[in-house]
């Protein structure tokens, strides 16, 4: 089987500025963290291990992965995976970024009736640039299809929705929707617009049962699969005691600190402000509490990506909030960390929080389970349907509920331990093995019709 894959976020970003002007690379010639980095984010974290495993088990011969990378080479190969990069000129990139950001907000329920909605958005000049990006992706995929003769196209993430229709092929096409998809956040007048693009796909894969119901309510009649996002446990490092200590020394974490970790990119939707407010409420009960915020901006806010300065602006607001609540020294921003430091953060914390205002799924909860740490998860996250209160974590709906759950777990070490003991079982629901079985079924059923 040959597959054509498309996502906005590129799997790999070139770090070494001396290499940016080269046209082609074989990744094996380069050094990770020196010459290149793997892009953070759920899409790349899921898709790459899936492709690798499908190739390893001979279910897949080759893959071509098309994505945006305005400042990189045209092509990179990693074994049988060929990364093809779409380049857009600066003025188009700005328009594309503006529309993509607006879509993101709209689907995350940040819909402001006083501002643009989708219908107004698609009549703006910026939308033509958004369209252009999708057309470039479809053209590149078609070119690759001529060469490889794909068996199936697999398009990922909301910003690529028009790509399927633009492919103008009757070959099987699958779309993976990663962000929230709630019918109550989608006004009726968007229906025709969205359906026109969704219907170009033979199947849509969503991350939770509620998104599946919403898509049906919209009127989509082709196949819908609910596949929980997944991670490859092998990619996660079990840090040594020395590495954990080095991490603590670097970020000023003392031995007696009660560490609450929040692993999430710096985006207002992730609810860092909720976590900070909850920690402020907990200080009187847990004097040694410390909030560890791990992560920085996404590909969209990076200098190599769409250059949206959302992450910096959000961090400034959070720093102000920390000062306002008198939490100086209690909140640590680590920024982006490597896999060893990420492992150390999980290892050192007592529990994790994900208080997102909207969250497509929330793979960091799976990571938390993997390290045996109880997660406190927003009811707005897709993964909340896998969390059972007091069994494998807690579902929270407000700052007060979050503060209450943190206090409860801080005072009940036995409960933390019990949840930790059961957490691997929960993590297995989102293991790559399970994901691969389900994705293979989706691919097989869609290809066979």
């Amino acid at each position: 089987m040959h597959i054509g894959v498309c996502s906005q976020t590129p799997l790999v970003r070139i770090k070494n500025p001396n290499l940016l002007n080269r046209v082609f690379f074989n990744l094996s010639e380069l050094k990770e963290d020196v010459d290149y980095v793997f892009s953070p984010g759920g899409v790349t974290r899921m898709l790459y291990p899936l492709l690798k495993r499908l190739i390893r088990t001979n279910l897949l011969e080759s893959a071509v992965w098309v994505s945006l990378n305005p400042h990189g080479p045209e092509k990179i190969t990693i074994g049988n995976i060929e990364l093809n990069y779409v380049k857009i000129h600066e003025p188009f990139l700005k328009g594309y970024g503006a529309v993509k950001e607006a879509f993101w907000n709209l689907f995350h329920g940040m819909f402001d009736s006083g501002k643009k909605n989708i219908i107004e958005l698609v009549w703006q000049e910026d939308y033509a640039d958004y369209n252009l990006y999708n057309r470039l992706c479809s053209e590149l995929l078609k070119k690759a299809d001529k060469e490889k003769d794909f068996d199936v196209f697999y398009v990922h993430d909301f910003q690529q929705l028009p790509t399927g229709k633009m492919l103008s092929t009757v070959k099987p096409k699958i779309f993976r929707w990663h962000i929230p998809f709630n019918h109550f956040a989608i006004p009726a007048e968007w229906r025709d617009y969205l359906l026109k693009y969704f219907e170009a796909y033979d199947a849509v894969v969503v991350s939770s049962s509620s998104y599946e119901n919403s898509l049906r309510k919209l009127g989509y009649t082709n196949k819908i699969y609910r596949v929980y996002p997944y991670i490859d446990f092998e990619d996660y490092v079990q840090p040594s005691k020395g590495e954990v200590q080095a991490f603590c020394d670097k970020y000023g974490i003392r031995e007696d600190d009660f560490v609450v970790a929040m692993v999430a990119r710096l985006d207002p939707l992730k609810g860092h402000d909720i976590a900070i407010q909850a920690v402020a409420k907990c200080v009187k009960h847990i004097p040694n509490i410390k909030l560890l915020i791990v992560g920085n901006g996404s590909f969209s806010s990076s200098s190599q990506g769409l250059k949206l300065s959302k992450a910096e602006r959000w961090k400034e607001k959070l720093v102000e909030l920390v000062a306002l609540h008198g939490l100086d020294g209690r909140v640590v921003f680590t920024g982006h960390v490597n896999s060893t430091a990420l492992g150390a953060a999980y290892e050192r914390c007592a529990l994790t929080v994900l208080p997102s205002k909207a969250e497509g799924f929330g793979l960091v909860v799976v990571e938390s389970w993997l390290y045996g740490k109880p997660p406190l998860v927003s009811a707005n996250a897709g993964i909340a349907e896998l969390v059972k209160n007091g069994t494998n974590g807690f579902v929270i709906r407000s700052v007060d509920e979050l503060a209450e759950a943190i206090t409860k777990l801080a005072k009940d070490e036995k409960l933390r331990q019990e949840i930790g003991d059961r957490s691997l079982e929960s993590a297995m629901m989102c293991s790559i093995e399970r994901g691969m079985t389900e994705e293979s079924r989706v691919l097989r059923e869609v290809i066979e019709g």
Partner: protein
Amino acid sequence: MLGWMDLSMVFSRVLVFTAVILVTFVLARLVNAVVRTALRAVPVLTVDQAARLATLFVWLVGLLVAVNQLGLVLDVLLLLIALGGIFVVVGLRDLLPNLFSKVLVGVYLPFKKGDEIQIGKYAGKVIEINQVTTLLLGSEGSLIAVPNSLFLKQVLVNKTSVASRRLTIPVSIPATISLPEAEAAILKQVYKYRANFDHRFPPMFTVKKFGQSSVDAEIELVVANPENRDALISELTGRISALVDQMSSRDEKGKR
């Protein structure tokens, strides 16, 4: 053996023949360009047909004149051409009206794939429009093949809700210019007319065919007021043609 005089005469005739062919070539291109410019506001497929016919006519006259310069008797040649024409017309008398009608579907015959239509006693969903027939899927799953020529003879009822307000503008984009950039420029052009359209139906740009020299596409829009349909088709078609021409000539200049 041919004498020097004869050779000279043959040579001069061949020279005149070549000159006539060259003039015909230039004239055909000129006529093609004139027809395309004159019919700028007319849908692309119709312009293509008209330009092709005009060019064919110029070549036919040019060839006859050229052959005449060689001193050959034209009467027999004209007779052969006329007979050939008659045979083609008689042989294809059932197919030609269908082929001609196909060109008009979507623009002057307001229906397209996916529409629910009725023509005469036949009704169904349009599932295919080929060069000869339009295939309808009847209510009980029956397949109805309607000859395209019938749409010029009978009253067509399109039952699709937005059919009266929908307009389709065919676009031909030369392979020499970037399709994504042309599409973006065309959409920006359409946005200038946004007040005339039903905003619930954004412009839908669809590529129909990738040819060697051009890409055939179409933009589908829904007008707010059906009475403006014709005026919008005409004005937008002209604007888009001019835009594509401008992009094409900019590209050619860039290459030079």
